[in-house]
């Protein structure tokens, strides 16, 4: 039958000739191929010491941002927690006291802000939901640890380092 694409090729199976049956030339050929690889540079990236370059929109560990005066942007509105499909984010809000204006930008702030890194799927929806541009997934890969409880990151790990005065 005529094939529809006319791409069909009928392959003939020829009996092996003497050199092919002797097997040794094929072995030599194979050995030369592996020897070429022996002197190639390894493709391995030795991870903790060496890192592959991340893409521009890589989503890593979260960081809670500060504004240009070094005050925490987060106002504990809870939109990130609400938007989170993995329900990884919890927070407790608190009211800003007098004298804390240099610490928090809004009158309400997050006294506790926790992200469970084992639940987080790094989808970036919290980033999108935040009206205050306070949370970004611009960090590194979340490091390994031994205990589950150590994967619940609080503000100590999430909040950006304060500006240097």
């Amino acid at each position: 039958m005529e094939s529809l694409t006319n791409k069909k090729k009928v392959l003939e199976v020829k009996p092996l000739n003497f050199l092919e049956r002797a097997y040794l030339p094929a072995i030599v050929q194979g050995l030369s191929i592996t020897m070429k690889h022996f002197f190639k540079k390894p493709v391995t990236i030795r991870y903790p010491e060496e890192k592959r370059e991340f893409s521009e929109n890589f989503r890593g560990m979260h960081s809670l941002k500060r504004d240009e005066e070094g005050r925490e942007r987060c106002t504990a509105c809870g939109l990130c927690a609400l938007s989170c499909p993995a329900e990884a984010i919890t927070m407790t809000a608190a009211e800003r006291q007098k004298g804390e204006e240099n610490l928090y930008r809004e009158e309400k702030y997050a006294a506790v802000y926790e992200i469970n890194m084992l639940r987080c799927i790094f989808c970036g929806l919290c980033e999108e939901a935040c009206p205050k541009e306070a949370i970004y997934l611009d960090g590194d890969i979340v490091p390994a640890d031994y205990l589950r409880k150590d994967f619940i990151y609080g503000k100590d790990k999430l909040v950006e380092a304060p500006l240097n005065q």
Partner: protein
Amino acid sequence: MELTDIIIKFVLIIVVFAISLVVAMYSTYAERKIAAFFQDRVGPNRAGPFGMLQPLADGAKMFLKEEIIPTNASGFLFIVGPSLAILTACIGSAVIPWGQKLTIGSTVIDLQVTDINVGILYIFGVVSLGVYGIMIGGWASNNKYSLLGAIRAASQNISYEISMGLSIIALLLVTGSLSLGEIAAQQHGFWADGYFSWNVFKQPLGFLIFIVCAFAETNRSPFDLPECETELVGGYHTEYSSMKLGFYLFAEYINMFISSAVMATLYFGGYNFPFMDQISSPNLVTILGVVFLFAKIFAFIFFFMWVRWTIPRFRYDQLMDLGWKVLIPLAIVNIVITATAITFF
């Protein structure tokens, strides 16, 4: 025999034993590193500089693992198996000439533990005994995979010993001696009487047959059917754990070292090297000879590994075909050619 002679021999035995163990230990490291290079990887590099301490870490791990003896295993034979495997692997080193005579003051040290006049037969005997370790271990495990692996090992070794022996007969026609010390001495230098003095140039076909059989005898890929993990889980050492498993793996590497040494001695001139007559100090010649012998051995070990990471494993019927229908006729043809050449030239 004087006391000093006994002490010298004793020290020599210990040194040879220690060297074979250390070489076997670092062969495991070399194997992993070389495999990595062939596959564009890095290989072990965490334990010590360049991962040099990896064999020690592996050894410590082996010793600390839980020792399991299956309930239905034959207890005594289960332990005899690996012991026999490593014993037969080690005693082969006794007849290999590691170098010429070393003269310190008035004492002359022969760098060969014993030069028995049937050295090659001794090696053959030891190699044949090696299969008992695998056979007993595989049978005593009371596991069908182990038994299949052991049976494969036994039939493979028997098949390839024949062509190995036949290839050696052709070599013996050339050398006229069974003593390894004398065979090594005959291949003095590199060029003698208008031709290469090394046996590989007089017996190229014999060497080819011998090296193929050596791969089969040491159960190395592409003839590693007794332990092929894809078909037989682990073959004869499926049920083994802890240092008993370590002994089996170790025995394989020692076997590789010894058979490399035998090949270097029989075919590649042993401790001889080109231009050795131009060096005046005999002790320097001896020391350089040892260095050259080890260089040859390491080259062979590298070749073993190179082949392992290149060629896929044979199918069992192909293995038997190669052994019985190709190598044995080829070895017989080689004997006829050699005999004719010796008679007429």
